[in-house]
């Protein structure tokens, strides 16, 4: 079953075309790699799916829902989580609180209940426990009380993944999760992603430049260049596609 259907999506900023007629599907339970040169429009795809950018044309369907009719803050409620290429953590909050905000869409306490303290303690206790469990799963438990500001990039990348999972999403968008990691850490991350996928019953869209990792974990890969899809297929198919080699992987000198 297709969980996500992107159909003919075009995005323009003041005359510059960032995406042009992009079409691809992601199957339930797959890890779909999204690769292409810098500036190909991968992050733009993510921003369309998070409803930060408004496409000028095309449609996006997620789990049977017309995604373009949903407001940005309701995306999380639908079950879509994401990480950011250059991090969008909350620097003054502790790692634990960051992950707790990740579950915001699951919470129920609004201003009235917050002021009257009705059910606040219980919600916070539950959240704290599930968030701690997530931090533990990513090996960050001992840093739980540390503010996000001042921690290494690679660590924060993992915090973002934990935060994205806090709302128990069906689908996560990972934007270069391996950047800033050493080679051994990249391998470790690849194993974690595969493990997390089966544990949380997730579907993933993965933007990454570490080809070894993308090839290893992806069920399917979509290749982009200049806002268009130039190829799509299994890692093996993509690797041998002459168009992909020309545009991204490069030819032998």
């Amino acid at each position: 079953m297709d969980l996500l259907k992107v159909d003919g999506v075009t995005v323009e900023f003041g005359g510059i075309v960032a995406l042009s007629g992009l079409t691809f599907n992601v199957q339930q339970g797959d890890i779909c790699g999204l690769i292409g040169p810098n500036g190909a429009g991968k992050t733009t795809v993510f921003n369309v799916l998070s409803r930060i950018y408004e496409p000028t044309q095309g449609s996006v369907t997620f789990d049977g829902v017309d995604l373009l009719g949903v407001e940005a803050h309701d995306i999380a409620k639908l079950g879509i989580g994401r990480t950011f290429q250059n991090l969008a953590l909350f620097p003054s909050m502790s790692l634990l609180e960051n992950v707790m905000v990740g579950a915001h869409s699951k919470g129920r306490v609004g201003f009235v209940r917050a002021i009257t303290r009705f059910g606040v303690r219980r919600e916070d206790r539950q959240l704290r426990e599930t968030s701690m469990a997530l931090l533990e799963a990513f090996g960050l438990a001992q840093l739980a009380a540390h503010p996000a500001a001042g921690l290494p990039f690679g660590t924060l990348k993992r915090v973002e993944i934990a935060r994205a999972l806090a709302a128990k999403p069906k689908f996560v968008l990972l934007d270069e999760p391996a950047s800033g990691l050493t080679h051994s850490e990249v391998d470790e991350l690849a194993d974690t992603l595969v493990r997390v996928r089966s544990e949380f019953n997730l579907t993933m869209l993965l933007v990454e430049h570490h080809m070894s990792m993308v090839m290893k974990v992806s069920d399917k890969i979509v290749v982009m260049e200049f806002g268009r899809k130039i190829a799509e297929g299994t890692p093996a198919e993509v690797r041998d596609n002459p168009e992909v080699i020309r545009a991204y992987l490069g030819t032998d000198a």
Partner: protein
Amino acid sequence: MALVTIKRNSPQHIAVRVLGVLLVVIAVLWVPTKMTTGNIDSMTNALALVIAASALNLVIGYTGLISIGHSAFFGIGSYATGVLVSKYGWGHGWSMIFGALLAFVFGFIVALPALRIKGIYLALVTLAVAVLFPTMMKWPKLEWLTNGARGISGIRYEELPSLPFLGELKGRDDRTVFFYWYAIMLVIITVLVCRGIVKSRMGRALIAIRDNEIGAEVMGVNLATTKTLVFGVSAALTSLAGSLSVARTGVVTADGANLTLIGSIVFLVVMVVGGAATITGPIIGALVYVWVDNYTRTASASGEGLIGWLFDWSAVSPASIILSVALIVLMFVAPDGVFGLVRRLARRVVVIK
């Protein structure tokens, strides 16, 4: 590093907290029983500032939305109480509730531009609100309601609730003590509201908006409702301070200090000096502010001490000069305010794990 380490929620930690609460209670009780009438009155004034600065803190400190328009919300509370009590015979309590509701709606509306604009542009909207409010109150077309530039005076206070613990309203001294307790009650309400919001899902959402708006939105924080509601709550709390001071002085004029832009600046100074984004900060800030204000006023008037000698040339009280210098210096040495500074120093001695 630290000399003492205490475990969170251990008996020692609980003992320290109980001791802290006890000290605050003693201080609160000590003021009306031992202080002079004038000083009790100053404390009441400080408490009104605590309310306004705490409310401002919700918007600026936690959510990161700059507002210099809170004097207008103070003014809404002031005028609601002034007009309703003196012209329509309402009780003080009801006028205060009405003022808070009105301010909530107004705050909500003022925050609407904040959904599209940020930074200085929002500051400009709130500047416009701050300057427009006294102008509107003096507008001839509204004179039937507001008495124009003359303002409203002689607002009676007999009908204030005389609960046993508030004491009876007889004679001047009792009146001062009465309003002190009245203010304490409102401060408690304000602190509970602010603390309740901050220590909850909504409080985390506010800080998330301040730290990274897009990140917050992707996590499911509804920027529009969260920003407008927190602005509304903040405006409503600020109007309580306005109602309180009208009840205390019996007078409201459009050019009253806290109703003009100067009022907004004072709230901001109190918040920043005390420590933004903390519950305790505005309380400390208000005490510091009122103390500096009173001390420099008397010292420069009598020409005594360092202040009197330093500001011998000054035609008026140098309180504002000292406070503005303090504000700028604090931004350099302790951007998290006096409370932040104290907390940092305290952590060298005691660490709670």
